[in-house]
């Protein structure tokens, strides 16, 4: 291996060859190149192939270690995505590709363009019970504010990143770093974020989050109280009391309704924090990254001393977190002090089951953007009609072939799960703003009615001839086929 390279040589990590690529050259595969010091994919325009059977690919890609059933795809229909299609900006001109194709006997038109989104951001759902930071606090990347903490949801924490104020309303470097952060998240890359007075997280779409250096494996099975309810029967008779430690609602078996119903004997256990209803405690500790989203590493710190009036020597106590990742087993000695012992086999199963019932913890990245003036003008001469057609579900909106959720109300504001889009579907312009693919698919008749650029419609076969710049991919297994004609119609 050579030791010294010109400063703008990049090392490609798209495959294990790990080519060093000099500025202006491509790697061994001819697919990745060094463009002005940046590693760039050079086969830009992406077409999606639909599998023959029911429109769902059997195996889109063979996973490296995964099992494969030996079936192979047969290409049939093709959908032209906007990835690499180019934009209408800054001119108000027809979209770069307006493609007609016949699907199930219906003439469909897909208007394909890349949109430049100044109004955009990502919503992050991070599956973790660990406290990431107080609501409304700033989320930073490379020290620059790029978003804020919103709410805690079931088993997860929500962050909102980007938005026009961070992109263009702050300092130049705030805008640049925000754009870079959004771009990386949307393209599936890992990003490191720090939250003021909170945690530091490393997140990537579809991957487990890493909170303060610790990889989150699982979501919790439920809150502490719910966990008691779910497992009370399995614990009954095998242990005298159970505490499920949770930052939100810590549960105690002997006091909980589920324990009472089974006839679990009172242990007089006393827990720090505020009692909500019997067997359910709030605020047993501070939020943190320890047991069950609290800041504790030794669960005994939330227990007050056992009282001789209720407790007895050799009382068996299980303490466990809501994910089953942390657990400890104690027996009381003659002076009623809990002594940690090895978890008995009879309890191992229930702890294991808590873990099994926890879904894998992931980071979800939803891109959110608003389709504005020039973009809509690329579709029709009368932009408000496009909005109307989208609202009436006559026009389907997809991003790189992935379905988009359209917000009710004015404008075309949409959200899309970036993991359902082809890789590296996003780009940016130094404005700063993100470039995202967007496709509008509707019946040909409807397209004419809304004032579409019908003179620019080209048949699919025509587009497919331009092989030079195209790349065909198999559509994502979970995405509905974007060209499928809609149920409703205004063709009349």
């Amino acid at each position, binding site marked *: *291996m*050579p030791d010294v*390279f010109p400063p703008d*040589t990049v090392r490609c*990590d*798209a*495959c*294990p*060859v*790990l*080519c*060093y*690529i*000099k500025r202006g*050259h491509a*790697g*061994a*595969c*001819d697919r990745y190149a060094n463009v002005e010091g940046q590693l760039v994919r050079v*086969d830009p325009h992406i077409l999606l*192939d639909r599998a023959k059977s029911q429109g769902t690919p059997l*195996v889109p*890609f*063979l*996973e*490296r270690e995964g099992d*494969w059933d*030996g079936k*192979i*795809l*047969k*290409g*049939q229909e093709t959908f032209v995505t906007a990835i690499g299609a180019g934009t209408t900006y800054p001119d108000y001109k027809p979209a770069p590709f307006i493609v007609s194709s016949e699907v199930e006997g219906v003439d469909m038109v897909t208007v394909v363009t890349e949109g430049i989104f100044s109004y955009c951001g990502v919503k992050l759902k991070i599956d973790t019970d660990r406290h990431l930071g107080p609501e409304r606090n700033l989320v930073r990347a490379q020290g620059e504010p790029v978003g804020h903490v919103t709410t805690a949801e079931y088993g997860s924490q929500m962050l909102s990143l980007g938005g026009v104020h961070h992109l263009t309303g702050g300092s130049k470097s705030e805008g640049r770093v925000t754009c870079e952060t959004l771009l990386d998240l949307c393209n*599936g*890359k890992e990003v490191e974020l720090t939250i003021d007075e909170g945690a530091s997280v490393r997140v990537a779409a579809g991957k487990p989050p890493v909170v303060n250096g610790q990889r989150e494996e699982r979501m919790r099975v439920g809150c502490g109280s719910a966990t008691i309810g779910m497992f009370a029967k399995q614990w009954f008779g095998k242990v005298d009391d159970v505490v499920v430690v949770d930052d939100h609602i810590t549960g105690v078996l002997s006091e909980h309704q589920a324990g009472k119903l089974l006839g679990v004997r009172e242990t007089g256990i006393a827990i720090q924090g505020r009692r909500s209803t019997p067997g359910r405690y709030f605020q047993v500790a501070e939020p943190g990254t320890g047991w069950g989203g609290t800041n504790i590493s030794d669960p005994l710190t939330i227990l007050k001393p056992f009282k001789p009036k209720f407790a007895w020597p050799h009382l068996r106590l299980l303490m466990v977190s809501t994910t089953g990742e942390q657990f400890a087993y104690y027996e009381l000695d003659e002076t009623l002090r809990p002594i940690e012992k090895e978890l008995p086999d009879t309890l191992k199963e229930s702890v294991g089951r808590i873990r099994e019932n926890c879904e894998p913890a992931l980071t979800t990245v939803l891109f959110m953007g608003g389709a504005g003036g020039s973009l809509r003008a690329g579709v029709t001469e009368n932009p408000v009609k496009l909005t109307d057609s989208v609202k009436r579900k006559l026009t389907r909106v997809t991003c790189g072939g992935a379905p988009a959720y359209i917000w009710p109300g004015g404008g075309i504001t949409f959200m899309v799960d970036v993991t359902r889009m082809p*890789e590296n579907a996003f780009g940016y312009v130094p404005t700063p703003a993100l470039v995202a693919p967007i496709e509008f698919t509707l019946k040909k008749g409807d397209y004419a009615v809304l004032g579409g650029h019908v003179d620019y419609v080209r048949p699919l076969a025509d587009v497919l001839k331009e*092989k030079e710049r*195209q*790349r*065909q991919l*198999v559509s994502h297994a979970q995405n509905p086929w974007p060209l499928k004609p809609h149920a409703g119609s205004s063709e009349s």
Partner: protein
Amino acid sequence: MREPALIRMLPDGRRLHLHDGPIDLIIEADGPPQAISTAYEAAARRFVPILDELCCELPLLRSPALKNSERPRGLIARRMFAAVEPYCEDCFITPMASVAGSVAEEILQSMVGAAPLDRAYVNNGGDIALHLANNRIYKIGMVERPDCPSLFGSLTITAADQVRGIATSGWRGRSFSLGIADAVTVLADSAPAADAAATVIASAVNLPDHPGIKRVPAREISPDSDLGDLLVTRGVEQLAQFDIDAALENGFRVATRLRGRGLIHSAALCLQKRVRVLPPSHALAANLGTDRFLKRVVCTLDGSSGPSAPEIPAELELIGRTNPHA
């Protein structure tokens, strides 16, 4: 970010396309339908770990092959080394000179071992491994310039021929070349052997010190090239007829030597529209196959030795860079 290997059927429903990093294979098998699908499955399974296998020995595979070199361990890496070993005392060569043909061969063997096929090919960007049974034949079209594909010849390979590997090398291709040939197509017993020989002959088609040839140290273009500081061809201006003939003659002499050593079967050398063909030796000796071979390698582009346009066979597989997006 590592991309997963791509495994798919091409839209024609007949050919299998395997792609991973710089490896891009087009595969077609003929035989009973069940055998084809078994063979395709075997090919795909063998394919998936190949890039990792090769990359873990990459530094060794990029080092010059010498008589006492450390031998690589991987199956494909061993095929590569064995294919370049015959040249290691004559010229600079690394096992990478045979990587494309060796990958093609490995995949072909996995298919042939899995199911009874009438015939099959694995085309790795122009380096092709062939399987022919039961008197089957392949018709091959040859392309001199991958950037503007047109046929400079076509030929037929039968089950009775010893040929099971075809490879093409030239400075316009994806790999670097030390020579100036637009294309040297070699037929040999196997794809790895053909690949290594095509590389050696294409390097020999050369005019040392000719001012009209632009040469650049390989490392200046690709910092981790196995060719290091050796000068690779980046441009050739229009050459005088005698220069073309001299360069082809240089390559032709080397090709003749290789044929004498049994390393190749035959070869076609192409430079600026002129083609020289080295027929198989048995054809000369028995005066039997010459006619067949020469007629089928139709040299048309200079208009001197064949009909104006080669017949384009129905089952045409172009040599040269395949289009992975087709």
